[in-house]
């Protein structure tokens, strides 16, 4: 099952848990499942986070495919000057 790694501000939804095993074939499906289990986290993951998968950071990764044993890191959305 893929693992969702949550940056610290997200852990207030998960009672402090940093790593959650969660079903989902895409990042979006993982977010939906996380939101079902931890209501409220979905909006933050959708609007307020990027996802790092296999070392690559993706913005708006809703439909990004996730391997069954993947580690998905939800991190701050990045910007720049």
């Amino acid at each position, binding site marked *: 099952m893929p693992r969702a790694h949550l940056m*610290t*501000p997200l852990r207030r939804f998960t009672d402090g848990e940093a790593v959650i095993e969660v079903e989902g074939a895409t990042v979006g499906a993982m977010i939906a499942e996380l939101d079902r289990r931890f209501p409220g986290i979905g909006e933050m993951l959708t609007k307020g986070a990027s996802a*790092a998968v296999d*070392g*690559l950071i993706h913005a708006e990764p809703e439909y990004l495919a996730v391997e069954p044993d993947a580690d998905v890191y939800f*991190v701050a959305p990045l*910007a720049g000057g």
Partner: protein
Amino acid sequence: MTVTENRPDYKWVGTRPIRHDGYDKVVGKARFAADRNSPGQLHGAFLRSPHGHARILSVDTSAAEAMSGVKAVVTGADFPDLPIGHPERDTAVNLMARDVAMYVGHVVAAVAASTRAEAEAAAAAIEVEYELLPVVLSLDESIADGAPLANADNRTAFSGSDDPSNLATVTPLERGDVDAAFEAADVVVEREFDTAWVHQGYIEPHACVVDVGADGKAEVWASSQGHFRVRSQAAAVLGWDTARIKVIPAEIGGGFGGKTTIYLEPVAARLSEKSGRPVKIVMTRDEVLRATGPAPASKSRIRIAATNDGELTAIDGWIGYAVGCTGDMAGFVGAMSVASYKFPNLKMEFVGALTNTPRSAAYRAPSAPQAAFAIESVIDEIAQALDTDPIELRLKNAVVEGDLTSMGGPHPRIGFVECLEAIRDSEHYQSPVPDGAARGIGTGFWFNIGEQSSATVNLNEDGTATVITGSPDIGGSRASMALMAAEELGLDVHRITPVVADTESVGFTDVTEGSRATFATGMAVVNACRDLVGELKARAATIRGVEVDAVAWVDGAAVVDGHDPLPLADITAKAKSTGGPLTVTASLNAGGAGPSFAVHCCDVSVDEETGRVEVLRYTTAQDAGTAIHPSYVEGQMQGGTAQGIGWALNEEYVYADDGTMLNASFLDYRVPVASDLPMIETIIVEVPNPAHPYGVRGVGETGIVPPMGTIANAVSRASGVRLTSLPMSPPKVLAALDDR
């Protein structure tokens, strides 16, 4: 100098051709936004708030409207009131105050008149009645218990609370057991730091010309880092369909993040709509400094634990940023700024807090320079405490591929260690420190971003090519696009014309920020060229009467066994008979931007009697992944460094207690001049980014991150006292020397 790892043998990538837009820029032909005039145009001018925070009770424009030459007047009431939470509400509110003016210089009304002087006179004749509100001017005031609100619309992002607050963001990051690590540490250094507001300082003031026709369509000539964002922001602020607005990218005279948002265009559009005439607005330098940019001031407390053998075991800290009057630019300020060292135990909190000062804007690696200044200073002090070489200490703790960033998520392949080694092995670092001087080391990084880009590549009848993108060329990106296309197509780079097209002539492209143009837009160009090569092979197969599989593309020609190579120009000449024009468009949302690390080394001397710091020698090593056009990679490294030197030594906003900026000119806002700086020696490190076809990492942002720590470390070693406050201006340095 370049340090390269396993680089393929490119023909064009890595060469230094004259940039394609260069001729126009050395003969004065290039047209920047203020260089455009439209027939019948009016000139716009603003009335700005003289108060740091005030409710607008009434605005009387009748006297202004009656004045000579005046054709239109607009106020906040002329724009839709976007709801709290709308992504462009803060942009709208900043463009034109509605009910509350939130900083000195906040626009309250605007006038279009036949001449600028008439517009200015009329703006001054607008009568506004204000009710003064408390002014929140500093980070400390903003976060104090019971502080008055700087902006009653602000909510703390993702807090779940709908209560107004001065806090825009609060971002804690934590891993490991920090308390235990400090308990077990051999050495602990703790310091508090502060940094001043600084401005991007682009030489070209913001400018635009907007022409709204009777058909409702708007043509916008603008200087920006991204004309598609100008379009989308203007559409949102005006409540217009995006398709009504065409934005034509003027040449941009510097941005550095400060031109990733808009200040003028919707106001000019409304004035044009009301007057039926094109409207030109050009900011003065005074307006630029008072009402655009700047980068947040900061305060921080950093504590780092180390073992006697130089392992950095824990970091514990707080970094607060004063982000100005709105929270939208605050994002997760700081969160992406701590990722250079392994730190098995980490506990950080980053805060973005509102103040009654201009809405801050991105400035090259936003929020990272403030953090790096503090952290690199403390690490240097640990190196001094352990009596160890500052580069060796960093090498021992530097992140490599797989190590976690502070947010979580492992680093991809990165070149931090390679940059440290490049400086360690440099002639500069190996040379003796000059008499009376001291040497400092500092590092920095930025994640960089990908985002959306589009490119169209057209092959012309004679075998030349046109490469069309939507990324404004801030510092040589046209040449980089042409070089990548040349490499793909096997075509001489000078037979390729790179074009930055308007919003109706190329696919959507995100703003040029986050060092993304050469990375993401370059990737779109490469993808388009690769599709084009596939098409060229198909056309060659038709011409040669073979299967397409039998065609190879080698050095700009289709190669089929048993035939002479068929050059690209021979194929384009037969385009009509083989299927029509050869053109391909590629679009993408690029993932996998590669973090770029840099290590800086400088020698300084300190005048012990006046506190004046002189930078004697400066060397920077930065991982570019692959340098497409090395001259412009060096230029980004040197330019970021020079801005960082200014931030370190002399640049700062000076405010009066009422929030009035006292030094709003280039005379008193002291950006470095040529005689302030030495040559800035560059070492391009090339550790290719696996996610880009040529290994590109963005290089634009990282250069500004290390200089403040680097110079502070050198000054501290020269003077024997730790400098913790930016800028390290002569009065501050002399005071620190007195405190020794």
